């Protein structure tokens, strides 16, 4: 395992120390070492945006803390849900009295810990409402949305929810629009090589060289099929074939597209995949309003990409276009 850590069991602690040092212009640590918050949080009168999840997905989750996006984040072990206490403390750090929108991904551990944290919050009269991201089309059939995982599409949910909150939206308005964002987002992943949790020391799943796993999850959860490794164009076609019918996305739609590397796939190749994705969308009359390519939501040093497509309406477009200043996503508005 060619990796740079100290005691692998404390990789997350060590990472957080460096992270807070580098990004002190945006975020700060809190009393709970597993909770980071926007330096100006709680923002007076603003709905607090909270998320959280396992580590190993940088920039997710803490990298999306910042102006017009996320206010506080609960940080878990690598690939493991944060504690209920961490979610609860994140609620407290982000709460200015306007309530908390907890926007997180659909994983068993996160569901349980958020549920327990909400019980704790109730006792302190903090109003918390949730949106549970389930954009990963390959993780369950369309009629079982409660089984679908949240993947890179969560970024759209945070972007849109954070923008709405910054514009003064009420908790219900923020929740409604974040829910709309994730309902309108479909994602799929393709894995080319596995990743290794440093404290485990060897990959906990395998992808045979010469093959790829279509529908892979952010922790290496197996996909829907293992296929011979395709060209970038073929991979783009396979992914769009899975995503487009699921919404369905149709001629005349305007969308935001996110191709995120899973960690070790060169950014160069992500652009090659994106190029074909946009061609396919153009062929179908779907217009790309905005796109993102890069390592936006990773899985340590896994190889592969996720593709996420968000269908816009006027409200979502305005919120997606809003200026944002986080470590993982910076966007100027001229």
């Amino acid at each position, binding site marked *: 395992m060619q990796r740079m850590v100290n005691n692998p069991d404390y990789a997350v602690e060590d990472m957080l120390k460096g992270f807070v040092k580098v990004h002190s212009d945006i975020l700060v640590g809190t009393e709970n070492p597993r909770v980071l918050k926007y330096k100006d949080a709680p923002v007076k009168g603003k709905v607090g945006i909270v998320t959280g999840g396992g580590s190993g997905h940088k920039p997710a989750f803490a990298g999306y803390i910042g102006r017009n996006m996320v206010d506080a984040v609960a940080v878990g072990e690598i690939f493991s849900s944060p504690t*209920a206490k961490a979610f609860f403390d994140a609620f407290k750090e982000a709460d200015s009295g306007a309530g908390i929108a907890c926007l997180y991904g659909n994983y068993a551990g996160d569901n*349980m810990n958020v549920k327990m944290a909400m019980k704790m919050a109730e006792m302190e009269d903090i109003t918390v409402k949730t949106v549970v991201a389930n954009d990963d089309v390959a993780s369950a059939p369309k009629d079982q949305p409660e089984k679908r995982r949240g993947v890179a599409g969560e970024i759209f949910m945070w972007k849109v929810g954070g923008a709405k909150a910054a514009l003064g939206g009420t908790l219900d308005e923020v929740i409604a629009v974040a829910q709309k964002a994730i309902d309108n987002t479909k994602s799929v992943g393709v894995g080319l090589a596995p990743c290794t949790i440093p404290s485990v020391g060897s990959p906990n799943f395998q992808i045979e060289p010469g093959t790829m796993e279509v529908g892979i999850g952010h922790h290496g959860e197996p996909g829907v099929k293992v296929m011979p490794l395709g060209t970038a164009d073929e991979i783009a076609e396979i992914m769009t074939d899975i995503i487009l019918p699921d919404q369905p996305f149709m001629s005349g739609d305007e969308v935001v597209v996110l191709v995120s590397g899973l960690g070790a796939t060169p950014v160069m190749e992500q652009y090659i995949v994106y190029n074909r994705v946009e061609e396919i969308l153009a062929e179908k009359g779907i217009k790309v309003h905005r796109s993102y390519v890069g390592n936006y939501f990773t899985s340590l040093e896994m190889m592969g990409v996720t593709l996420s497509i968000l269908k816009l309406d006027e409200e979502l477009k305005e919120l997606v276009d809003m200026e944002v200043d986080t470590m993982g996503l910076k966007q100027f508005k001229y």
Partner: protein
Amino acid sequence: MESFKNQDGKRIVENLIKVIQENRDYLSKIDGEIGDGDHGINMNKGFSICQERIEGKDMNLTEAFKTLAMVLMTEIGGSMGPLYGTMFIEMAKQSKGKEEIDKEVFRQMLASAIKEIQEIGNAKVGDKTLMDTLIPALEAYEAAMDEGFATALEKMSAAAERGKDSTIDLVAKIGRASRLGERSRGVLDAGATSCWLMLKSMADSMVQMV
């Protein structure tokens, strides 16, 4: 009547810690087959923190379970934080104020733990989770209570093992592995395995004490 003193019970938790530490890599390996390979790491980290917290302190079983539960719930997260945190907080609650732990007290501890775990996790027998260890263990324990505390504990332990083994043939219906469908069949469930290790360890410790 067979029983042991709550005051002497700390060693039960100490043994639990040891068993988890010894099985760190084994549990991660099992979790790696159909999960994400961190079960042993998560468990070991929590139990080792608990070890530091109870080391050298004068504590009874209730307090030791409570310490373990708080560490799991506030410092571990994952699925195990809430699930096992709930388990041990219930064991602490049901033993609280009891000077002697007898077979009826332990029955309440186990039953209450299982009820609350089910409440939060919504899993049932056959879903390929730690419930497949817990539920038959409780049934076996209750069925054998007339034969005495020690026997009931031994039968609980044996039933837990069978329950754990039963997960091999199951398709996961809950948690990460549930997304695998048929591909999750043929391997042990990690949580069911750690749960068996813990029930067995508790039974062994208690049998020695009663």
